[in-house]
């Protein structure tokens, strides 16, 4: 059922302002102004190599860890898989720059006893892997759960388990694994916070230097182009590979897959899982707790940062509402109207994944920093726009999958029965999309809550988020407050995750919800 023209036009206008303008600015203004060749020099080759090595290394390590974990949880009889799965998701809830803060401190403490220096490319790969391998776990398990059990059973009747895994299971789950690998590669190559804390010189750092240190905005934007081109192509390839498959299963957890017995390997592999959980979430939290020092530091951190915590909550809630509303409208147009508008919106939204946070920040400054738009640029609205331009794809992905699963016949039947489009949306589409809306809201909220790259550039004077406060405290060497505040941030995110799971289980009783 085609959405009304007024709805499509309004959504497209919002899409132009929030997505298309910054993206077009990044891709076309440098070409338009013809200054491409003056920016690049031989030094950039080593920066590019560093960035690619960082992203490739993180992707490779995440694939090894993520695939091992997914296979163990979904395809073997390992004990406690239902408890282990949420524990493997926890690292994704800790912002990567907090992982970096923790391991930076560990490195300086143990460096005298054992040679453990985190301030190099290997160190950055280590930290980013611990932060991002859950992407591979989540997507691979979703892929494994979506496989028709009977296909594997038929193969097992003729071939052994290894041949079945290699010839049947692997090809079927490949799009999900590839998709996870693309996500990890993109997030690693565009990451600014971790290399900045670990003092590793990579491409996004050079973009930041050009903007902040040399005030050369054009150079910063032009330097973003090669990276945006590579990541943009990967996003397109990933979309092509995934076709209409769903990305993540939320409530199903680990479905009743065919499981292979581990036998004598049970204990060592269980220990492998425990060690991995320890390194990726328990040890970081423990170290933050130890280094935060006296309990009074938590009160000091809370009392000196109460306004920042409140502001971050407010900004994240407003951003999430706006992004989910926009994302839902865009997803509906993508799925229900197959015209050129839908294609433009789909491509534009997913290209956002390819743009580094710093570049997006610069682009938004260039677009909105003018007297006529001062009401946006000098207020919190610019941060909302920044979050939208960064996190819209994370709302559109689950919402598109959800709307795709709704039978358009229901809407058509209601329309024939005389219901208006708005009533159909309110009474049919929105209630049926409620779980996906909740997932999108939560994902966007968590991402907004810990966002640093774009906010650092966009935040108006007199305003501050928790992440920016942690970044400032770190610069001024207030380590105990940094640890205390990071732990408070993690506690808030974990608490919200618990609340989300509780609400989600209340509203969604189905066994297999996939987005």
């Amino acid at each position, binding site marked *: 059922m085609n959405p009304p023209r007024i709805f499509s036009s309004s959504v497209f206008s919002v899409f132009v302002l929030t997505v298309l303008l910054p993206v077009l600015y990044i891709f076309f203004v440098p070409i338009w102004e013809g200054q491409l060749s003056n920016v690049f020099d031989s030094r950039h080759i080593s920066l590019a190599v560093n960035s690619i090595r960082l992203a490739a290394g993180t992707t490779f390590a995440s694939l090894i860890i993520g695939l091992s974990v997914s296979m163990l949880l979904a395809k073997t009889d390992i004990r406690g898989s239902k408890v282990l799965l949420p524990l493997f998701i926890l690292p994704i809830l800790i912002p990567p720059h907090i992982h970096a803060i923790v391991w930076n401190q560990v490195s300086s403490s143990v460096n005298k006893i054992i040679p453990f220096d985190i301030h190099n490319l290997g160190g950055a790969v280590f930290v980013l892997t611990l932060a991002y391998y859950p992407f591979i776990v989540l997507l691979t398990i979703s892929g494994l759960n979506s496989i028709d059990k009977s296909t594997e059973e038929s193969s097992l009747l003729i071939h052994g388990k290894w041949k079945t895994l290699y010839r049947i299971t692997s090809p079927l789950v490949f799009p999900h694994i590839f998709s996870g690998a693309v996500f990890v590669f993109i997030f690693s190559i565009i990451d600014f916070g971790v290399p900045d804390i670990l003092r590793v*010189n990579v491409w996004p*750092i050079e973009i*930041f*230097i050009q*903007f*902040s*240190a*040399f*005030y050369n905005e054009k150079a910063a934007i032009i330097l973003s182009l090669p990276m945006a081109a590579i990541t943009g192509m990967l996003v397109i390839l990933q979309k092509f590979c995934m076709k209409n498959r769903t990305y993540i299963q939320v409530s199903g957890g680990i479905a009743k897959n065919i499981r292979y017995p581990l036998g004598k390997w049970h204990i060592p592999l269980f220990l492998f899982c425990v060690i991995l959980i320890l390194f990726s979430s328990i040890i970081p939290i423990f170290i933050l707790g130890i280094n935060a020092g006296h309990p009074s*530091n938590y009160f*000091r951190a809370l*009392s*000196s940062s109460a306004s920042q915590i409140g502001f971050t909550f407010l900004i994240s809630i407003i951003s999430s509402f706006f992004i989910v509303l926009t994302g839902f409208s865009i997803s509906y147009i993508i799925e229900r109207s197959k015209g050129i508008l839908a294609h433009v919106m789909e491509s534009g939204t997913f290209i956002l994944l390819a743009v580094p946070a710093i570049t997006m920040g610069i682009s938004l400054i260039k677009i909105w920093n003018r007297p006529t738009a001062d009401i946006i640029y000098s207020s919190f609205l610019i941060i909302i726009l920044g979050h939208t331009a960064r996190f819209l794809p994370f709302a559109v992905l689950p919402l598109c999958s959800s709307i795709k699963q709704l039978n358009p016949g229901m809407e058509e039947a209601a329309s024939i029965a005389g219901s208006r489009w708005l009533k159909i949306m309110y009474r049919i589409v929105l209630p049926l999309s409620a779980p996906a809306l909740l997932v999108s809201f939560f994902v966007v909220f968590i991402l907004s809550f810990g966002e640093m790259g774009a906010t*650092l*550039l966009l935040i108006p004077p007199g305003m501050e988020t928790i992440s920016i*406060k942690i970044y*400032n*405290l770190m*610069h*001024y*060497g*207030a380590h*105990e*407050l940094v640890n205390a505040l990071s732990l408070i941030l993690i506690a808030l995110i974990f608490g919200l995750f618990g609340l989300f799971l509780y609400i989600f289980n209340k509203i969604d009783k189905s066994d297999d919800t996939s987005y």
Partner: protein
Amino acid sequence: MRKKLITCTGIFIFIIFFSILSYADNKPEIFSTWEGFEPDKCASIWLIKKFIKQNAEIKFFPKGSIINKGIPFDTPDAQFRRYHNMSTYESLLKHYKIEDPKLIYIGLLIHDVEINTWGRKAYPETEKMKEAVHMIMAQSQDTKIIINKSMDYFDTLYKSIN
């Protein structure tokens, strides 16, 4: 008689008003910061004491403590602090609308130390200035000595700029 009384009262009010004004002007203004020195902080103290409030008193608080006295600077919560694209020194220049080209040039050197932290410096003088300030900090632990020596250093630097 009535005229004399009015004139005397006027003079009295004027004297009182003038005294209050002059006291307020001479009262040392407190600028507060955390303990510990770096080029940005040394340059900011010099800027405050020489060009913003000549009788300013600099108070130091333990690192991480909440400052509730005076005008805070070079701390995470202060208005005058390091931003992603601005040093504390530059934020003071901007707020007090100081447009002396020599001070702006020193601001560029501080920017090069503080914001351009990734090695490739924009000005050849940056490293010299950074080394000189670090040398002052290494020679003494005493706050007063560090402030006095860095005041002398920045005075010399200011005079040496053409």
